[in-house]
Every structure is written in C-alpha cells, then in structure tokens.
C-alpha cells in the first residue's frame, strides 16, 4: 500500500506555517491570496475562502483589492522550500521510501509498517497529526498504487483509505482536473463533456486512443486506478534548515524571537521524527539596509552555537539563541532569518552513578549564556570571561586560558590532597608602582597612591622568556614586606626590564 501526503493550497500553507495554531485556524476561514511575479504581481495561489470570494489565478493586486477583505501575501520561495523539506521529513517519519512527487505532494511506501503504526486508517491519522506538528494541514490518501493514493489525497479532504481492488469506485466522483494532464487535453475532455473520472473510465479505449493518443489511454488507466509504478525515492538530505522571509522587515527582538522560536521548534520536531538531536545551532540573519542603499547583496549576520552534548529540546536552543541575540545590535531591520541545526545521534549513555552531582547538561549552556550576558564573552586579550581555567605550557607568570566549562565528569588524574600552601592574590592587570631603591634593594614604594616603607625584601629573582620573538618578557621579582597602618603586608613586586617600569603583581594572602 502507498500513502500520499497532499498539502492543499501549498503556497498559502507555506506562507502561514510559522503562525501559531490558533492563528492558522483563523487564516483557514479568512480569504488569503499569494502574489508573485514582476510588476504588477499577480495571484499565483489562494485558499478555499478566497476562491469562494471570486479570486482567480492571474488576477492583479488591484483586481484582488477591489474584492475587499482579501489578505494578500507575497510568495516566499524560502518558506516553500522549508515547508517542502518539513513535508518530506513528515513522510520519512513513517517510511524510509519516500517520493517527492511535486511541491506539496509526497508519496510513501507503507509496505511492512502495519506492525508499527497499526491499520492504514490509523496510519493516515498519525501522518495527519504529525503534519499538524510541523504546521501543515494534510490530506492523506492510502491506496494500492501511488497514483490512486495521490488522486484520493487531492480529491478528498482528510483521510481516505481505498481498499485494494476498489480504486475505480472511489475515484469515480473525482473531477478530471486531478489528473496530471496537459491543459489542452483537459480542454478537449471538457468540450466532450467528460468532467469526472467515472466518465473518462467509461470511454471506449480504442476510440480514445485514436483521438488523444497514448496520453488519453494512460489518463483512462489512471482514472480506473489500474496503473502501477515504482516510487522514485527522494534523496536523503541531512541538512536541516528552516527559513522565513518577513514581508515587512522587523526591527525588534520580540518580533524576531517569535519566528525564531517557531523555526527552532519546527526543526526540533523534524529532528525528533528522524530520532536525531543536535549539537550545533546556526542562525543567519539577512539585513535590509545594504540592498536598498547600494543594490548589492544583503548584509548578513551569522551566529553559531556549539553545544557540548546533543540536545533535542527546542526551548533550550531558543533560550540560548535569544540570550545571545539580545546582546547584539543590528545596523538595519531584519529581512530574512535562516536557522540550521547539525543533526547528530542523541546521547544514549547514562551518566555514572559515582560522579558528583553536576549542573543539568541541557540547562548548563543556558546558565553560561546568561552569565556571559552579564560579564561579557571575553576580555580585551580574548580570554573568555567564564569557563574552566587551564594552565598554559609556559614559564611566563600568570599565563592561562579559559576553556568552555562542560560540566561533564572530569577525566584524568590530578594531584589530590596536596598540602595547603600560601598563595598569591593576583592583581590583574598588575598595579603600576614606583619604587625607591636603597643599597640595591626596594626601600619605599607606593601602592594605590599610598607610600609604604619596605621592611624586608627578598630578591631579585630574575625571570625572562620569549626573547626570540615579539612577545619577550624579562623581569626582576622581589618579595617584600611593607608596613601599613593595618599591619604588615607581603607583596610580590617586579621590575619589567623591557618597559622599565615597576609593578605590584599581587599580595601573599
């Protein structure tokens, strides 16, 4: 058996797919027409309500506006491409053999799926429910051959299951316009008074062939439901992308966030249908200004988030993107948004019972994003402001980097239980100071504009490195005790021999 997934008024549904479910229900009852083409744009698609209001293909915008109450939308190929990909994914959730027959129509082979999804009618309902999840209202036709399934889906709304051997009876009341015939042939049939498939099926085959050739005979066989062909499987596209073109460019984050959330949720539904997760989210924004000003390509803003572990939760991904985009400022209104996820296999290993309690992996990235929103991403030298410190393999004092904090179980041995020692509290950046020397020892210095007398000094300890390149450093270190009004403070100071400047590196604390 074969199932056909048909999206009635595909361009209209593709344009309204990102709207919330309630809004889509309202749009279903209100007339909508899709305009496309060079000036003047003409109607290329419409929904049933618009059809009832008298709108026809090819009408200009002015003609449509005279009807009144018609909602006009600009055709977006990006939205249609996203809808087409979502429809294919919807089919792939039920069968590995899926044919993308034409935009808005997908046929799948249901052979062997009965044990998984139950009866064909039950499968049809499940497919329709899944379609609703990706924002598409589907007609599903199930029949013994692909073409009959397609005609059933195109001709009847809802779920239609044609029992094997009764195709001709079920297809009989359908109009001949459901057939994939050339417009001239349909005109000829109309002149003959042939308007239903039943009428076409009743014509004498030889006479029909004499007048319409092999095409006529093929159409008659289709009308009888007697054809049989193999599906042409659609290529499996690993790229999961959703895009949305705004009719009017948006300027506020709230407007953008609404569509961003919808796109991410749709991608997560598609990931879920493939039993996959993602560890990389990419958001591309096309800005409006440049094209208007210079006629060149639009300015693009691209942001990539890499996650330490695969996630399937759309809320986590949205929150992550929203927190980051909230910090960004754009030079122009946003015209188009494209969201892409890199599919990977979901995490299948449970964490060990014996590792310490750690922050929830999915929430950790959001926590880190919120922290970065407060303290910033990195300092002036490019070192991250939040993460796990890592010691660099260098003799240069205070050389470290900050790596992303994964929150996962720590690996590798570390010197546990070392003896507690006195450590240095680093002043970062080191405090510039002036030191008076007496008998080649520091005698007096100023810290934060206050003068202190040096009681004892230990040094100099000479230290240098990287003299072979531009990042050379050379210093004489002193550990000193200074008398303050609160007591004695033990500091580490050093003379930067390249800059000829004294610094206070830190205090022993």
């Amino acid at each position: 058996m074969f199932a056909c997934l048909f999206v009635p008024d595909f361009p209209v549904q593709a344009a309204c797919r990102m709207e919330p479910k309630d809004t889509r229900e309202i749009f279903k009852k209100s007339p909508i027409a899709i305009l496309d083409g060079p000036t003047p744009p003409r109607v290329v698609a419409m929904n049933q309500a618009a059809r009832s209001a008298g709108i026809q293909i090819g009408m200009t915008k002015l003609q449509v506006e005279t009807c009144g109450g018609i909602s006009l939308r600009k055709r977006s190929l990006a939205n249609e491409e996203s809808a087409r990909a979502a429809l294919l994914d919807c089919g792939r959730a039920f069968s590995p053999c899926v044919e993308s027959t034409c935009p808005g129509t997908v046929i799948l082979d249901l052979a062997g799926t009965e044990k998984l999804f139950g009866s064909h009618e039950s499968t049809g309902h499940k497919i329709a429910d899944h379609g609703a999840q990706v924002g598409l209202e589907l007609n599903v036709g199930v029949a013994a051959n692909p073409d009959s399934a397609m005609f059933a889906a195109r001709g009847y709304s809802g779920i239609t299951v044609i029992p094997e051997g009764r195709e001709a009876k079920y297809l009989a009341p359908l109009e001949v316009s459901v057939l994939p015939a050339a417009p001239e042939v349909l005109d000829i049939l109309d002149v003959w008074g042939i308007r239903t498939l039943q009428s076409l099926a009743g014509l004498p085959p030889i006479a029909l062939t004499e007048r319409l050739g092999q095409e006529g005979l093929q159409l008659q066989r289709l009308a009888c439901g007697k054809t049989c062909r193999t599906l042409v499987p659609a290529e499996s596209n690993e790229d999961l992308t959703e895009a949305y073109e705004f009719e009017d460019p948006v300027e506020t984050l709230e407007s953008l966030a609404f569509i961003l959330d919808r796109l991410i949720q749709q991608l997560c539904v598609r990931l879920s249908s493939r039993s996959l997760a993602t560890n990389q989210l990419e958001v591309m924004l096309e800005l409006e200004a440049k094209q208007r000003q210079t006629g060149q390509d639009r300015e693009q803003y691209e942001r990539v988030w890499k996650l330490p572990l695969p996630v399937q939760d759309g809320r986590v991904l949205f929150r992550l993107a929203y927190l980051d985009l909230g910090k960004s400022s754009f030079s122009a209104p946003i015209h188009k948004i494209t969201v892409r996820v890199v599919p990977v296999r979901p995490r299948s290993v449970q964490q060990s019972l014996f590792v310490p309690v750690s922050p929830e992996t999915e929430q950790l990235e959001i926590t880190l994003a919120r922290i970065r929103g407060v303290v910033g991403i990195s300092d002036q030298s490019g070192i991250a402001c939040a993460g796990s410190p890592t010691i660099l393999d260098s003799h240069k004092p205070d050389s470290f980097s900050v790596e992303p904090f994964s929150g996962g179980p720590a690996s590798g041995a570390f010197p546990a239980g070392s003896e507690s020692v006195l450590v240095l509290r680093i002043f970062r950046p080191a405090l510039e100071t002036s030191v008076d020397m007496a008998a080649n020892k520091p005698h007096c210095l100023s810290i934060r504009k206050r003068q202190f007398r040096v009681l004892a000094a230990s040094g100099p300890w000479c230290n240098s490195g990287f003299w072979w390149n531009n990042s050379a450093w050379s210093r004489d270190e002193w550990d000193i005790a200074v008398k303050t009004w609160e007591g004695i403070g033990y500091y580490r100071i050093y003379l930067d021999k390249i800059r000829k400047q004294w610094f206070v590196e830190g205090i022993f604390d």
Partner: protein
Amino acid sequence: MPSADLLRSQIEARIPAAFAVYRRPERKTIPTGITQIDDLNGGVPVGALTEICGSDLVSSGRTSVLISLLSKASQTHFCALVDASDTFDPASAHKTGTNLSRLLWVRCGKNQSKFTPLEQAFKVTDILLQSGGFGLIVVDIGCIAERLVRRVPLSSWFRFSRVVERHSTALVLIEQQPHATSCAGLVLRMTMVSAIFSGRVITQFNLRSEILRGREKKPSQSVSQDFSLKTQWA
C-alpha cells in the same frame, strides 16, 4: 474540666505536627583542608552562607583558605568561583590540587558593562544558585572597596541565605568585613600573626582564624585557632 493529656491528644488527633519536636537535620560541611579550621567548625557548612573576612591591605590568609577549600571541594563537587576583581591565580590552585576542569571561573569587570563588578558578581551568583548543581559557590569580593559592599542591601544577603538553604550548595563569600550579619551560617576572620624567613627567603606564614559567628556551634565568645602555611617554594 479536661486534663492536659486529654487536650493534647485531641489536638494531636487533628493536628499531628502540633507537638512534634522539630529536629534540624545535621548540616553537612565541606572541609577546608586546613585541619585547624576544620577542627573549629568542621569546615564550610553546606546549605548556608559563609563569610571569610580579612584585610585587603595586609596578608591575612583568606585567599589561601579559599584555594585550599577549592582543592578539597573540587575532588567531590563541581565548584564555581565568581571573581569580582579577577584575582584568582589558576597556577596556585593547580599546584594545591584543585581539579580545574570541575571549576567554573567567572571573571567579572573585564568588559565595559552597565553593571559594576560587584553587581555582576551578585547577578552571576543569583544565576548559579538558580541553576543548581554546584556543590560550592565562592564569591570573591575581597578587593571591592568596603564602602561599596556596605551599600549592598540586607535583603540581598537574606535572599542568598534563603535560596542556598534549599540547595546542597555551600555559598562562601571572601570579603574584607562581614556584612551578612544573621544571614551568615559561619563567619571566619583571618589574620596574620607572623612570617618566618629562612635567610632572605620567606618560607612560612603563621595565621590565625577566628570564628565570629557559627550557627551550628554558637560560640559564647569568639574562638580562634593558629596555624601555619608554607610558601610554595619552601
């Protein structure tokens, strides 16, 4: 006239918890790794706010206690260090055995921001407490000017105290002076007694820790303990 026992039984029948004796669960602690301090209070209490105070201008040993605490805690917990002045030395922490891969280090005040480093530190602490999963959260505001920390409203300390009560997290603040008053579960003051030189080289610091306030073992008067820490090269 009904007897007291009868009244009690009638009330207990309707409100079973009315006469129940509330036993506060024994609070867990995280050892600091310095025996003398752990002997005083068992370590840093989990589910409470701890203040470790010491002067900013002179050596007091509070940073050494912090690093020692991180070293011990990171063996069994994930830790977070909110560094308001970016004074943490990863090399020293690594040498004392801190598992740096289990440490989230947040460096405040490194970017131009509408928030001051102190505000950043408090906001980040709030986020970390909400997030959960960290066994130890250290907020180092030891180099922030005292006049700024004094302006922190008491409600902030109270909020931290109430939030951390519900988590198995120890919240430790490194400061110059104690500010959380009754919101703190433990207040520890660190001072230096003397330094020992071997020839011209400093080799050892003699320090004193004093408990100013302890919720579990309330001292009638402050108790102190002296201890020594060697320098890294001694």
